[in-house]
């Protein structure tokens, strides 16, 4: 529409007249500054939260399908438990035959059966509680575990029913604060197991839905599954509050891996159908698909972004109204100047351009400052986290999942949001600038000249 040189001159003029009223221009700009800042900050926090969720889900493996044993609700438990004989206690969950069945399904490249109990462990005077996991040699690959020292359980250990164990980094430090654990023997229940390796530290995975509790891999002790079956057995008795209960579970979990992400969902369906058939409708199992959780997390992220973005957008609109208000006052104040310019030959479009440029420069400068402030979001958020950690959370709530989620979260600036937020601020300048600019342009020049 206008030659470039003109636009540049118009912008320079706009700056000049805005600088005439520095305080007023600055205050007017604040609305846009904080609007843009909050858009960027909100998006960064939403992005950070979703990145956190995504990371936790990815830790479960995007090509993995997790099949879990689920304890049936209490009333149905009585019925099935009674049916199988009181002496065995409650029997439920995945069977070794399920593992053999699932392992044979097409597209599956790996399957790890797991049996776990919580038990006291002992080395000399140290008796920490740990999660004892019976598993096979494929376990570290599927759970992104790496060895710090020694080796993991091998197939040969299983075949020979060896009493060997691998310690998580945390439990190793607890049992052996001063000694080298390798070669020492840890007692679990009635047997002693020789330590053959220690795993690298690994961040805990999050609790997913209702079916998977979060896993702190650092407190795990791994032993060969067959050894588990023979030495510890399927049946676990717990005595609590005077009553005695027993459970009989063959496998707690089967982690299945498919070759390709596109095979995940169809294979999960096949698994569900197979288990529904073999368990005869008894719902003592569940299938968790991390990939699906990833999709859900992504949707939640989008919802978050839209909601947070909209809230921030409201402050931008408020900022725009502030600008419009000031521009209307400016136009009234400069009525005389408008009359002079019109008398000297300015067209209406020239006046519109002059005032619109001023509004856009004001909003754009505010947007630019807001973007710069937005870049500081991570630092600002760290400050908030520090305040929350030191003044809001006490030792009781510090480790709750929610507060952990908050304190572990890092805002992630979405680089797209920077030009977009700046563009929106310029757009706000245009939208809220047009009315005052037109009001200026459509004044009667003679009356404008007479204005005091």
């Amino acid at each position, binding site marked *: 529409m206008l*030659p470039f*040189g*003109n636009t540049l001159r118009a912008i320079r003029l706009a700056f*000049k*007249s805005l600088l*005439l009223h520095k305080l007023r221009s600055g205050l007017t700009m604040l609305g846009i500054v904080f609007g843009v800042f909050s858009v960027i900050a909100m998006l960064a926090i939403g992005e950070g939260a979703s990145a956190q969720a995504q990371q936790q889900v990815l830790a479960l493996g995007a090509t993995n399908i997790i099949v879990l044993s689920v304890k049936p609700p209490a009333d149905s438990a009585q019925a099935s438990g009674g049916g199988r004989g009181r002496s065995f206690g409650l029997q439920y969950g995945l069977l070794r035959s399920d593992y053999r069945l699932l392992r044979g399904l097409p597209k599956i490249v790996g399957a790890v059966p797991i049996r776990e109990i919580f038990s006291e462990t002992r080395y000399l005077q140290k008796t920490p509680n740990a999660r004892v996991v019976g598993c096979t040699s494929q376990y570290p690959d599927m759970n992104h575990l790496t060895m710090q020292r020694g080796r993991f359980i091998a197939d040969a250990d299983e075949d020979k029913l060896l009493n060997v164990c691998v310690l998580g980094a945390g439990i190793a430090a607890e049992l052996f604060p001063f000694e080298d654990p390798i070669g020492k023997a840890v007692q679990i229940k009635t047997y002693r197991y020789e330590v053959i390796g220690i795993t690298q530290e690994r961040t805990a995975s999050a609790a997913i839905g209702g079916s998977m509790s979060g896993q702190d891999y650092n407190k795990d002790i791994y032993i060969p599954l067959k050894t588990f079956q023979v030495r510890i057995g399927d049946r676990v008795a717990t005595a609590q509050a005077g009553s005695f209960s027993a459970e009989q579970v063959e496998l707690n979990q089967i982690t299945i891996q498919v070759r390709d992400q596109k095979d995940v969902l169809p294979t999960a369906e096949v698994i569900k159908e197979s288990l529904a058939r073999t368990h005869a409708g008894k719902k003592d199992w569940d299938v968790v698909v991390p990939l699906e959780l990833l999709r859900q997390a992504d949707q939640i992220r989008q919802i978050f972004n839209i909601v947070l973005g909209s809230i921030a957008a409201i402050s931008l609109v408020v900022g725009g109204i502030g600008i419009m208000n000031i521009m209307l006052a400016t136009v009234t104040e400069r009525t*005389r*100047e408008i*009359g*002079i*310019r*019109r*008398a*000297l*030959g*300015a*067209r*209406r*479009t*020239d006046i519109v351009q002059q005032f619109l440029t001023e509004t856009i420069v004001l909003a754009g400068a505010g947007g630019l400052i807001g973007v710069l402030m937005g870049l500081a979001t991570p630092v600002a958020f760290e400050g908030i986290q520090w305040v929350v950690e030191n003044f809001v959370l006490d030792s009781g709530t510090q480790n709750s999942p929610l507060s952990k989620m908050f304190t572990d979260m890092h805002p992630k600036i979405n680089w797209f949001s920077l030009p977009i937020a700046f563009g929106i601020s310029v757009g706000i300048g245009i939208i809220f600038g047009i009315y005052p600019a037109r009001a200026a342009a459509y004044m009667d*020049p*003679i009356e404008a*000249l007479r204005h005091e």
Partner: protein
Amino acid sequence: MRLAAQLIDLQKHYHLGEHTVMALRGVSADFPEGDYVAIMGSSGSGKSTLLNILGALDRPTLGNYILAGYDVGSMSDDELSEIRNRRIGFIFQSYNLIAQNTVLENIQVPMLYRRDARRISAADEHRCLDLAEKVGLGERLDHRPFQLSGGQQQRVAIARALVNDPEIILADEPTGNLDSATEKDIMNLLTALNNEGRTIIIVTHETSVARRAKRQIVMKDGLIERDGMLLTEDGK
């Protein structure tokens, strides 16, 4: 002789609710190129209204205003702007400089609104400096209006009126706010412009000012009462 402007039975009405004010009720006059006219008359007789129409700031309600061969009454707002920019130079009683601009910038304003050459070239800059020199303000280019006396401000306005080289200079009581010595300086400037061949139309209450013109028009109640060489430089 070519006409710079021609008024044919010009009327201007203002509607104030029920009431209609007839500010001009049928004014006809010819303004040959190079003319120097003073418009006089009592307050409210329609002098400013007439001058605003002559300056293409306003359109007549009835009748025709022919400026350089064009009928101004039928022009669009943009065309009126162009006429004002190209062909008219305004000088106001209250100077009407832009407060935040320097002397030089004020002189340049009409150049910003030229249709063809909006960029201010080196030649344009030179022309502005020459004009400032001509009105005696060569030393004060960087001053702002509030740093100048009334007479100096009016000189800036005159330089600004000349910058696009207009055929007609319109002045509404240009010396109304000035003392008699400064009035004389300003009128000397206007006379010099007329001697260059520019048409000058000036509204005034002062006979001392009107006497400098070649021709006087006296208005009364929206009509021309008398028109001709009513006053001469030397006495009545």
